[in-house]
């Protein structure tokens, strides 16, 4: 794969959070939609890597016409080309990834955000890597590229327990990055202005293949946890432990207080529990 092959960055257009109330964001309202911090970090890294490797950046999104705003912002920031795959906002990740992989067949590096804000599955990058049968490295917290050979990316990824691993990833590859990795540069004014009327390739896509099952949506509640069976000779002791009777702190007290009173209440609780003298 030559270093002049472009770097692609996948940007997901997401409706804003749905809890805004009557004045706040509305799912159908493009004004409040945008791309995630992770996607912005991916764009910034794509621009930096392209600079180091002497190649260009193609920004791509699978989404409705409104998503072109994200592409224009990417062009303003320095992307060379912008592609929109015409798909619904809620298209299935498998269809999205398939179409992205088709369009990105020539990209040397495909950069993604680690998770999209709404769906949060982090699966599209892995799906794209599968379709192209290339290496993947997901959820990266640092990226560097070997400019000498331009054939390997060096990256850092989190493992459990606070450990990290250093990866050498052969090109072509799919990388996904965390939002804190980089801050997107501010677009220079001339590019920002030119991007408003810049050309965007719009690609028609076949009708949806996959359809997610309809879901019952409820407010989040933590799942009841499995409890180890209590030990103890006496039945009453076991029961007490199970029900926490007598030993349990008063879990679940909620108070509405003015800040000074709230602070005093917190200090009292910390004292009572023995965290403060």
């Amino acid at each position, binding site marked *: 794969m030559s270093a002049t092959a472009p770097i692609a960055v996948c940007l997901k257009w997401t409706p804003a959070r749905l809890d805004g109330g009557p*004045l706040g964001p509305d799912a159908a309202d493009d004004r409040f939609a945008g791309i995630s911090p992770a996607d912005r970090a991916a764009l910034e890294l794509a621009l930096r890597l392209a600079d180091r490797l002497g190649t260009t950046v193609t920004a791509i999104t699978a989404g409705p016409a409104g998503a072109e705003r994200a592409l224009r912002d990417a062009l303003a920031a320095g992307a060379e080309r912008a592609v929109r795959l015409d798909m619904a906002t809620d298209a299935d990740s498998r269809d999205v990834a398939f179409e992205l992989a088709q369009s990105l067949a020539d990209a040397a590096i495909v950069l993604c955000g680690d998770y999209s804000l709404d769906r949060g599955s982090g699966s599209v990058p892995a799906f794209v890597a599968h379709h192209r049968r290339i290496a993947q490295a997901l959820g990266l917290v640092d990226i560097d590229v070997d400019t000498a050979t331009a054939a390997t990316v060096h990256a850092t990824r989190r493992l459990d327990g606070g450990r990290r691993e250093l990866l050498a990833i052969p090109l072509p590859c799919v990388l996904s990055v965390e939002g804190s990795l980089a801050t997107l540069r*501010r677009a220079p*004014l001339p590019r*920002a*202005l030119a991007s*408003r009327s810049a050309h965007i390739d719009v690609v028609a896509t076949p009708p949806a293949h996959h359809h997610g099952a309809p879901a019952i949506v409820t407010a989040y509640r933590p799942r009841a946890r499995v409890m180890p069976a209590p030990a103890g000779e006496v039945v009453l002791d076991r029961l007490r432990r199970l029900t926490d009777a007598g030993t349990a702190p008063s879990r679940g007290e909620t108070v509405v207080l003015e800040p000074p009173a709230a602070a005093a209440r917190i200090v009292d609780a910390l004292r009572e529990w023995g965290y403060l003298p």
Partner: protein
Amino acid sequence: MPETPDVDVIVVGAGPAGACASIELARAGLQVVLLERGPFPGSKNMYGGVVYPRILDELIPNWWDEAPVQRWVTRRSTMVLTPTQALTVDFRSTAWGAPPYNGATAYRPDFDHWLASHAEAAGAQVLCSTTVVGLLRDANGRVVGVRTDRPDGDLRARLVIACDGVNSFVAKEAGLHPPVDAANYTLGVKETLALPKEVIDERFGVRGREGVDIEILGGTGGVNGGGFVYTNLDTIAIGAVLKLPKLAAQKRRPEEIIAGLKAHPAIAPLVEGAELKEYSAHVIPEAGLAMMPKLTGDGLLVAGDAAAMCLAAGIWLEGVNFAMASGMYAGRAAIDAIRAGDVSTAGLAGYERRLSETFVLRDHRKLKRAPHLVLSDRVQHVYPELITSVAERMFRVDNPEPKPGLRRIVTSERKRLGIRRRDLARDGLDGFRSFG
């Protein structure tokens, strides 16, 4: 050698003034860039809640078919409050509930965004998340462009129109503003309260898209100012406009004053059980003509709140219509000047002429005394009680006493409240002159 301009006109601020200026300019085929610091037009803009859009007839025919309106104002009330009393003058008109309409409640993020989209459709380049941080001038001090907060952020134009709102950075930078005097500003504070639409309909006695606009004198708890209540589809805007020096002197927090207003026996039943959605505050240029900057400079026009065009005179709180009109006239004057090749102060004289011929400056001239009068201590703290106690005695049945005559009631209440006849007469005359 002077650098060539990048575009014909730069409009700073995509509020109502900037959007209307851009619409006119772009329709005339000029190259316009509209710069806005927020993420989209109207995103950060707040106001009380009522737009009087008559002037839009000239810009967007049948605007009512498409404007993002909450409710049409078909009922307008003026309320005079003392701590325990309320006197309301209530006007209703079914005519205001049909085209061409008189007034509408609307959310600014909706309204401003919609207006700016017309500028964009006409060909203006709207660039958001871009803040103007300086003016570019040539050797003669003529304004030739702006500096933005973006890298490589200078942009040159034949003409700059400042529509950047109250405390206009651009007008100040150009030296057009007289020194700031806090006494010329009021603080507008507002709470947006959510209630189901049916509840609002029932409490305010309206149906469908009908809405209510209530202006309030008194009820601001010793701080000179006024209050308002407006209905949106499923929210109520309640707020107050407060004299800044008084607020500071009394060390009162604006939230307390809204809380006081909401607790008033005449208001409480309207807002009971509503959920607070948003609290916002904004400064209002209040002194009208007395604080207007120079409206033109070489290569520069100032419109809307940036030019203190907001009319805040007691029962009137209008700014959006003044902003739209002044923006539109600024656009027209700019077109003439650019076509004539003279964008100096002299070449731009058409702006002030247009403002003087229309409501924009004529209303301000007519009502130039009104802000001062309405916010004066007697009108604020003494007359509400006079008016309500006169009403109370008129309506009270004191059998076996016979009904007293109005003149007698007024005289005795005036004396009770220690108002000198001379002051009352003078204020009456002032009022007549101010509003007549």
